[in-house]
Each structure stands twice: as structure tokens, then as C-alpha cells.
């Protein structure tokens, strides 16, 4: 019996009259990689931001393990330590080196000693292949390297689950691969991941389940094989065909 790490129940988010999504249910089991796909504006990013408590849902509950994190009086800072987040625009701390970026949470949130934090941070930087860039500032790194530092920064906190919000969308085509490779490795190491992306190659190869969202609803979810080869709904087929076509074109151009 797989153990659920993240349970989303009947989640609704609206901004005024504008409904982002409603009555959403999703379970992420330990070690799973869930890829969320769908057209822009369907609430995929907002869903991740709800999970990380960067925004509050109007209705519904989210559980991290056995803790309802949407409950009133939850210590948000405490919860966020256990949920890693990787943003589309990297959002590194530009005044700190790569090492400083990864270390900050360790010294200030986990209150580790400087030495222990440096050790741990270097380990995470090695994991994303950037140990030799530890003393570089974000402005001295390529986009792909910056995003890998951002992944190391999140990993350093030893999160229960990692959220990726279109982690390669702001990258040049030739830099996407190195970031996806790090994510693929993470998934293989058994990290629990919830990934919003348009990278269909990644979804097909790495995802345990693909969730197709549109207009605030989950249209369909299933294994990559089910979704790509036997989708139940025409809309899923249409979207996947369109985006795979686009992705294929981009690949050809890159070559």
C-alpha cells in the first residue's frame, strides 16, 4: 500500500469572481513523480502555490503526511521547510554566491553551524553538478546553472516533496537538458515530486502519473502510457498531440 505524502481534497481557489480551480482532488504518494500538464491559465501554478502556502485556497484541505497544513493556526514557516519549491524564474538570492544561496536556509531556518551548513550545501551542489561553481554569484551563472542551484537550495532543506513550477520555461533550449537531467536523477533517487511542465519528453519518461488540467478541472489522469497512447477524452488527445508536435519541432530546431 503506497503511502500518501500529499493529499489534496476538494480544493477551490478564486480571485474575486474569477474561479482558478474548484473541487480539486489529488494524491501524491511517496516516491511518485506527478507531472501536471495543461494550457496556460488553468491554475497549475496556483495549485503549487497553494500547496506551498504562498497563497491560501478558499475551500478544501491539503495534508502533508498526517498534518493538515491548510488548518487555521498552522505554522507556515514550519510547513514550508518540508516542501521544496523551484520557480520558473529561478529566484536565486542575487547578492549571495551559489553556496550562500544553498546555505542560508540551513543556518537561518535549521540553525545549523556554519561548518555543517557548508558541508551539507556542498553536498547538494555536487548533487546538481555545480560544486565547482560554489563561489559564483547568480549573475555569473547561466540560466541552467542558476536553476540547478535553485534546486540544490530547495533540496538542502531535506523536503518531503519537491514542487517544480515550469522549471525550464525560462531557459534557452540548449540549457533545458541539464535541468531535466537533474530532475530525472532526483526522481530515480526516490524524491517525491509534483512537476508542472510542458516538457512532454520528461513527462513520458519520468512521470509515474500525468495529470491533465484544463479550465480549473482535472480532465484526466493516468500513467504516461494511458495518457499518450489511450487517452479517454478527445480533449486530452488534442492537447497532447498539439504540444508534442510543438515540442518535436523545437527539438528539431535545437539540432
Amino acid at each position, binding site marked *: 500500500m503506497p503511502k500518501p505524502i500529499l493529499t489534496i481534497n476538494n480544493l477551490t481557489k478564486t480571485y474575486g469572481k474569477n474561479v482558478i480551480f474548484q473541487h480539486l482532488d489529488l494524491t501524491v504518494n511517496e516516491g511518485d513523480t506527478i507531472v501536471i500538464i495543461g494550457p496556460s491559465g488553468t491554475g497549475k501554478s496556483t495549485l503549487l502555490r497553494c500547496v506551498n502556502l504562498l497563497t491560501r485556497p478558499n475551500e478544501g484541505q491539503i495534508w502533508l503526511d498526517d498534518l493538515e497544513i491548510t488548518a487555521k493556526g498552522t505554522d507556515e*514557516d514550519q510547513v514550508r521547510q518540508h516542501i521544496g519549491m523551484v520557480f520558473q*524564474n*529561478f529566484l536565486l538570492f542575487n*547578492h549571495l554566491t551559489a553556496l550562500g544561496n544553498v546555505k542560508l536556509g540551513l543556518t537561518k*531556518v535549521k540553525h545549523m553551524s556554519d561548518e555543517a551548513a557548508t558541508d551539507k550545501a556542498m553536498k547538494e551542489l555536487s548533487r546538481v553538478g555545480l560544486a565547482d561553481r560554489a563561489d559564483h554569484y547568480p549573475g555569473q551563472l547561466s540560466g541552467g546553472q542558476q536553476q540547478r542551484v535553485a534546486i540544490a537550495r530547495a533540496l538542502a*532543506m531535506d523536503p518531503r516533496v519537491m514542487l517544480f513550477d515550469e522549471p525550464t520555461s525560462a531557459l534557452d533550449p540548449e540549457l533545458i537538458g541539464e535541468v531535466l537531467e537533474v530532475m530525472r536523477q532526483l526522481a530515480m533517487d526516490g524524491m517525491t515530486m509534483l512537476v508542472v511542465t510542458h516538457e512532454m519528453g520528461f513527462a513520458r519518461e519520468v512521470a509515474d502519473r500525468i495529470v491533465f488540467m484544463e479550465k480549473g478541472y482535472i480532465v484526466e489522469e493516468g500513467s504516461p502510457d494511458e495518457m499518450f497512447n489511450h487517452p479517454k477524452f478527445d480533449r486530452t488527445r488534442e492537447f497532447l498531440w498539439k504540444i508534442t508536435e510543438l515540442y518535436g519541432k523545437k527539438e528539431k530546431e535545437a539540432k
Partner: protein
Amino acid sequence: MLSWLGYFERFGSAFLRGAGVTLKLTAIGLTIGFCLGLLLALARSYGPKWLQTLAGAYIAVFRGTPLLVQLFIIYYGLPEIGIAFPQNIAAYLALGLNSAAYQAEYLRGSINAIGSAQMQAGRSIGLSKWQTITYIILPQALRLALPSWSNEPISLLKTTAIVFLIAVQDLMAEAKRAATTTFDFVGTYLAVALVYLAMVFALDALLKFLERKTKIPGMDIEVHR
């Protein structure tokens, strides 16, 4: 018109003393202004609604009325309700309180430019709001503010000249005394203008140095847009 050399021989030490007072006024006014200005900027950006309004009102009042009026209220007005300050303290207060309003606006602008994205990034690794402000927002916002904020020390240094009106013995007061002794108004004030100019040049060089020193490697502009 006295020769320059003779002039500085006669009034050099008085000018030097006055310049010292002027620099002290600038330094203390700037420090008070910075500390209070930073609090005001943080209050406006992150405070609860009522505090935002209060900080906004402070800035509106202190930017909206002449410094001279503020100085006279503090020095001549407040004693009437039993709060009396010596001249130099009244001068520090007026300069500091006034400068705070301007510095708050410089800082608020750059805090907003660093923006909510960096706040989210900080919060996402479990830092609290105030930890994020301390370790992430302010180190970047202060650097970003520096080039435009550099106007403030220079402007303040020259503005201190009005405090001779409440008999603080600054450079301007020494100049006035020298001018009324020699009746050489052109020469005296030109000489004093030169002293001010020299101080501004030195201050400017110091600020440029500070800007270079705090520059983040790899960033021409510190903010990621």
C-alpha cells in the same frame, strides 16, 4: 578684496571649525534620517494598514513643509509646550526628521523593486517574513538604492547651512561672522562656497567608492527582472 592666502590665514581656523560642525550636522542628521527612514520604508511596505497610513502621513508632512519651518517649530515652538532643546540638538533633530522622509522614499522604491518574488523565494525555504526582509530583501534593496540615495548626503550637507539661523556655529555662521568683520562679502562667500564644494567632492568620492565596494559580482543591475 583680501588675497586668498591672507584670507585663509585670518579665517582658516574658524572655517575649519565651522566645516567640522557642518560635517557633524550632516553625519548625525543622515544617521537619524537613515534609521528612521528605514523604519518608515519598512512600515509602508510591510506594516499593517494603520502603520502604512501613519508612515505615509509622516512622509507627506515632512516633505511637504519647508525644513526651515520645521527647524523653527522645534527650536522656537516646542519650548512653549515645555520641550526645549539646545541649538545643536534642535538642528540634529530637524535635519534628521526631515531627511528621514526623503530617505524613506528612496528605500521604499528599491524595496518595491526587489519585489514580492524574492519574498516568495525566501519564504519557500522556510524563512519567516522578517528573516526574508533582513537577509534577502534589504541587502539587495540597499544596494539598489545606493546610486539615487547618494543624492541625500550631498543635499543634506548643503542644507545644513540654514542652521546658522538658530545660531549653530557651522561653516555658514563662521562665514557670516567673517563677512561682517571684513565687509568683503564676495570674497568671503566665494571662499566658503569653495569649502562646501571641496566637502561635496570628498563625500561624492566616498559614495562612489561605497557603490563599487558593494557591487554584486556578475550583476550590472542587482535585480533580476
